[in-house]
């Protein structure tokens, strides 16, 4: 029998003694879930996610979780996760790439149903011919499903963001899902130093009656309650119900900002924000940017960094403020389409200074030299 002490989230995150572990991203998922007081997890294999949910299965076998099973495909898994959340338990799953696409119909319904599900996404290519290699293109499709989106740079981020995601998602005024994204293989399959809280501590349990919408358990009123009401009439009241609900879900994400500020230390992080050239990135592209900044400094070029940790809600004002002064914004990305560059161009005051790229995809790594070349061109 596992005995863990329930502690306040702030104590677990900020005050408890930390120890360093040298672990993979998949193992960081397991370390986060071990401390997250998760009731149930539902798994389905897909590379590069599988190992993380194997490890969560091991946690179930050890007694950290009360229920765990393998579903029949990602659509069913995400549906079962929805059912579990509507039944009032804290639930976790993970997927990536084609699994994300297979399950896609569920994500807007998670948000619309105000389910505080936390799901890890380990990104990979979704194109034909078949690939299992790293690529963040699926994130472009996920941006406007209504779920909150965090993007981890490394295993440490993954551990922190997953644990904190439960606390942020479950705030009664938020109560929408969080997707914690990490770049497949680069984060999941590499080892890194991760600072963790003691394993005998865990988050407080989820209180199902803190939900802003009724739990489907026939143990709370009203009896006549459909999740979610089938408002499918061709009249103004029906349209108004849908319109206002979409806005309410979006507003819930905005209300999450203060919790993201508190727990994640903001939607963005910046280094040397006064520089003329700024690298703006998310995920492992941030790490490549850091390496390029060091290399550029060796050539006497001053470059700053803006790391986007939270993509939904989008840090519009933060990006505007931190890039207002600079002359060039370089946006390195691990996908063909440059979805992050598009997002940034849409919010900065002068988008002619956004350098579209560099970008790699199809499984390629991004040599520091590629970013450095963009920096040199901008400083010339």
């Amino acid at each position, binding site marked *: 029998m596992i005995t863990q002490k329930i502690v306040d989230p702030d104590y677990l995150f900020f005050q408890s003694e930390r120890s360093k572990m040298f672990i993979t991203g998949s193992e960081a998922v397991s370390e986060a879930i071990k401390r997250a007081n998760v009731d149930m997890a539902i798994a389905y294999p897909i590379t590069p996610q599988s190992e993380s949910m194997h490890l969560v299965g091991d946690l179930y076998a050890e007694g950290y979780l009360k229920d765990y099973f393998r579903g029949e495909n990602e659509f069913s898994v995400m549906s079962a996760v929805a059912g579990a959340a509507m039944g009032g338990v804290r639930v976790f799953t993970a997927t990536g790439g084609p699994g994300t696409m297979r399950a896609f119909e569920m994500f807007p319904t998670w948000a619309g149903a105000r389910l505080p599900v936390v799901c890890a996404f380990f990104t990979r290519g979704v194109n034909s011919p078949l690939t299992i290699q790293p690529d963040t293109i699926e994130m472009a499709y996920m941006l406007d499903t209504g779920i909150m989106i965090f993007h981890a740079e490394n295993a440490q981020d993954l551990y922190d963001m997953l644990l904190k995601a439960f606390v942020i998602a479950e705030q009664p005024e938020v109560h929408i899902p969080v997707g914690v994204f990490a770049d497949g293989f680069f984060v999941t399959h590499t080892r890194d130093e991760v600072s963790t809280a003691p394993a005998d501590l865990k988050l407080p349990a989820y209180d199902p009656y803190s939900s802003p919408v009724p739990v489907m*358990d026939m143990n709370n009123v*009203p009896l006549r309650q459909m999740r979610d009401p089938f408002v499918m009439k061709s009249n103004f009241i029906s349209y108004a119900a849908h319109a206002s609900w979409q806005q309410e879900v979006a507003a819930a994400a905005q209300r999450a900002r203060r919790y993201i500020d508190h727990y994640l230390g903001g939607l963005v992080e910046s280094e040397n924000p006064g520089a003329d050239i700024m690298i703006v990135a998310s995920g492992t592209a941030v790490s490549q940017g850091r390496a390029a900044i060091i290399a550029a400094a060796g050539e006497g070029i001053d470059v700053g960094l803006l790391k986007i940790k939270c993509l939904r809600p989008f840090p519009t004002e933060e990006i505007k403020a931190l890039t207002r002064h600079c002359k060039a914004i370089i946006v390195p990305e691990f996908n063909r389409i440059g979805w992050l560059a598009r997002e940034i161009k849409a919010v900065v005051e002068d988008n002619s200074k956004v350098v579209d790229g560099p970008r790699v995809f199809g499984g390629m790594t991004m040599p520091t030299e590629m970013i450095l070349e963009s920096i040199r061109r901008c400083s010339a």
Partner: protein
Amino acid sequence: MKSDLWQISPGFEEVMPAEYRELVDNGPFGKKLGVADMGTFKELLEEHPLCAGCGLALSLRLTLIALPNPEDTIIVGATGCSSLAFPQVSVHNIHSLFGNQNAVATGLKRALSLRFPGQVKDVVVIAGDGATCDIGLEAVVHSWFRGEKLATIMLDNEAYANTGGQESGMSRIGTVLNMAPQGKKFSKVNFPEIAKAAGCAYVAVAEPSRPKRLEQAVRRAILVAREIGPAYVQLFTPCPTNYKFKPSETLSLIKKREQEGVFQTMEYLSPEAEAYIKQIEEAKR
């Protein structure tokens, strides 16, 4: 559910809708009512927006009356004609998507088992033939493979009725429907046999012209699902709108099909389910 939960707080009686007050004063919760009591109590289905003569609406009404413990029943539905009636059903119910009902129900049932150990919480899936046999097949059959303790009820009107009368896997061979302009080219899927092979401990085919048999099938399915394993009930619910017969002929059509030998009711109980049902029914006597 505690009985005081559905009582209206003092002072709020007048602001609650009339049909809710009726439900509190004269509803089926905790009373063990059945189809023999129809007309004497407030039913769970508050009117409905479905077509005149709808076999599905009648079957849904009878199914809701047949629930052995409505006060602790949560229903998972799917998109289709029945989903138009569910906002007017007085137990907690979920519409998630089209075809994911048994997956949603799996998560829900497991969650409720964790939260209410040792207490009755019946999770009943009620969905159409398209949702069950076609788009939701994988989720339905896998919930049975896994032995999930769910009662799955198919409202079989032999077509996608809500989208305008398209062929489904449950339509009969040769039937001309939308998307089958030359008539359906393969046979009606033998879903009860699939249910048996996939591990259902209880399987029945029933229809609404014999309400007591329908009630028995639904009740047994839910009781077996509670204690033994997955259960499946297929209700033949003809659709006058898409099959173009008079609304008054719904029940006679069922009888006609029976006489022609192209429809028959059935019941299967696994030995374990049979022993369990016998034990319950003998204890009642």
